[in-house]
């Protein structure tokens, strides 16, 4: 069998050349694949980086616009502006004699403006998935080894 193969290769040396070409092409394809993947990843990374930069810039612009609008609103609703509007509409402040007071059961006056939620105490929540479902096999083994031997609980006892 071995002799047959050697004879076949001696009679047709292009077989060896094809083998070399095949190996070379395989290497070229592998290198091209790696290069293509690298190019794709780096391109994606660069594009994402640029997008982040643009979003940050947009965020800064929006933040400034927000400030500008708040200031504009403050100017429009300023005491001076409202007084002028009041005067131009022939309105005036209420006098104590003109005020009519009504009892409104259950009415609770507003506490004041709220610009953010109040501080809260951070509570540690029980994870929905147990560690058995999230940890790897090695993590599970190491945790078991660290925990050491545990007393087994009776399984025949009915838990309430």
């Amino acid at each position, binding site marked *: 069998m071995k002799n047959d193969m050697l004879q076949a290769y001696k009679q047709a040396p292009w077989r060896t050349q094809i083998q070399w070409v095949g190996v070379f092409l395989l290497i070229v394809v592998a290198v091209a694949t790696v290069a293509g993947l690298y190019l794709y990843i780096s391109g994606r990374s660069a594009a994402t980086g640029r997008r982040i930069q643009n979003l940050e810039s947009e965020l800064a612009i929006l933040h400034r616009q927000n400030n500008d609008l708040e200031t504009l609103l403050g100017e429009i609703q300023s005491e001076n502006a409202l007084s002028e509007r009041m005067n131009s509409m022939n309105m005036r402040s209420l006098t104590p004699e003109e005020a009519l007071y009504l*009892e409104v059961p259950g009415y*609770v*006056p507003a506490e004041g403006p709220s610009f953010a939620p109040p501080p809260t105490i951070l509570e540690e929540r029980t994870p929905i998935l147990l560690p058995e479902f999230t940890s790897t096999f090695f993590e599970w083994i190491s945790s078991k080894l660290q925990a050491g031997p545990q007393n087994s609980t009776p399984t025949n006892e009915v838990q309430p």
Partner: protein
Amino acid sequence: MSENIKTRFLMICVICTAVACIVGIQMIRIQNTEAAQRLLDASESYQGVTRIVYPDRGNIYDSKGRLLAGNETSYEIGLDLNSISQPETVASIASSVLGLDYAKVLGYATMTPGNGNPIYQVLDDFVSQDKIIELETIKDDYDNREAKGKEILPNIDGLIWTAHSQRTYPEGTLASNILGFYSYLDRTGGIGYFGLEEAYDSQLSGTPQEVYIVFDPQRLSTVEEVPPGVTLVLTLDREIQAMTEKALDEAIEWSGAENGTIIVYDPEDGSVISMATAPRLDPNNYWDYADLFPNPTPFNAAISKTYEPGSVFKVLTMAAALDSGLVDPETRFQDTGAFNIGGATIYNWNMGAWGDVDMTECLQYSLNVCMSWLSTEMGPDTFYSYLKNFGLDRKTGIDLGGESSWPLKLPGDSLWYEVDLATNSFGQGISLTPIQMVMAIGSVANDGRMMAPHLVKSMVIDGKQYNVDPVVVGTPIKTETARTLTKMLVNSLENEASNALVEGYSVAGKTGTGEIATPYGYSSTETNASFVGWGPSEDPKFLVYVWLEKPSISIWGSEVAAPVFSDLVSKLVVLMDIPPDSVRLAGSYSTAEK
């Protein structure tokens, strides 16, 4: 292979190795030269830039959430000298739109960058949005033109504008004595002056952070967000502040006073609802400060200017006398019209003798002789102990920059004389700021509990709103004493048919006329006219302190300051939704809606 060939191969190997070693050594040497290090350092500037990011200064709102101090966008205009192709056009546009000097801009625009010249030249700063819109319109117009033949189109390339934040106060002068101002023209070293801007400067400005921004898109990542400065929500009510300022301005004009102060305070929790002084600065134009406040005019007289308060102080003397058990409201006093102490004689305001009077009448007729008798009977230890408990020997600690106080003269001090025990009892020979008086007398209105005056109601820090709890400074008098004294002061105003009375509302109060010390003794023609009052008397929601300096139409607090109090309170009750006694005390009334 012959020996000769072997030797030749060996020689070639040695030479090649030697050359390789030399090349390697040279490479290492070149990389460690100073020039290489400079090149390396220079290359870093192409990789990214380190910038200090200044957070937006925190906003300030009134108690109803109306903006008092905020930020808006303004622009820096500059020249990128590498990008300028038409210096004349740039100079012409900068001159016509921004009002800059044409020749000066042209001079900058024709500079060659490098060789000692900058590559960027600032032309103007704090330019408004309107001007930028105008520039953008011109730029768009130039960019959209199409050249005909060999026509050269105009452009303003190289003229660039960069946005940044600018402190702004939409209410102008309103409450400026409380807000203070921020020196926003100094973009990197600006600080807050006076008021809240000074007291909360570090919190409002936040923490600037150094951020490295890379140019390589592959290394780009989110820049760490710089949290804004702390936002303040005040106890101050803008409508009441505006009304108080208007009332003060009218009072100054009407009375011919040189100056004045009005404070509206909630004795229950120490909140300052409004605080008006004159003059007032527009913090948007803070550079007018030196013109408006020539030395020694204080920025906020309510916390910085001490004066001899006069008879309003009698509230504290009577509080001490009642609380120490020396007298009760029915205690009688024979007023002979003169009281001798320490070689001096104390007289009443009209130099008269009022005969047999009780303690309410002592307050009602504002008898100096009676008060001198009370302080002397108490003795210096008890009397001054009460004054210290009222916090008159120190600053109130109000959360505003620029508070000052005058040392309280005490027995044993070189400047204290026996007669001071008498004169102090009716508010002479003792210097206090209006806010000290407000805090001390506030304890009488608040069942004996003295609350720290404050302006900040809550703060927004890192997206969470924290409420500031009121602080009890002390309990200088008992609850019973405070209630008794309040009733006495209500009765004294009603018996006197005072100008301070407010129709439909029961108020307690006391007038004050303080003589002003001059280098030649006390002036009898120039006074400090004051009034302190609170209401509704059985459940005080406000305490109002009025002080007018040197009024010209009358020297008496009862004729000048008391009517101002009455007028102001009649407006205040409407703004604070406080129904008249007839409605409020009628039955189950608890909360009202107009």
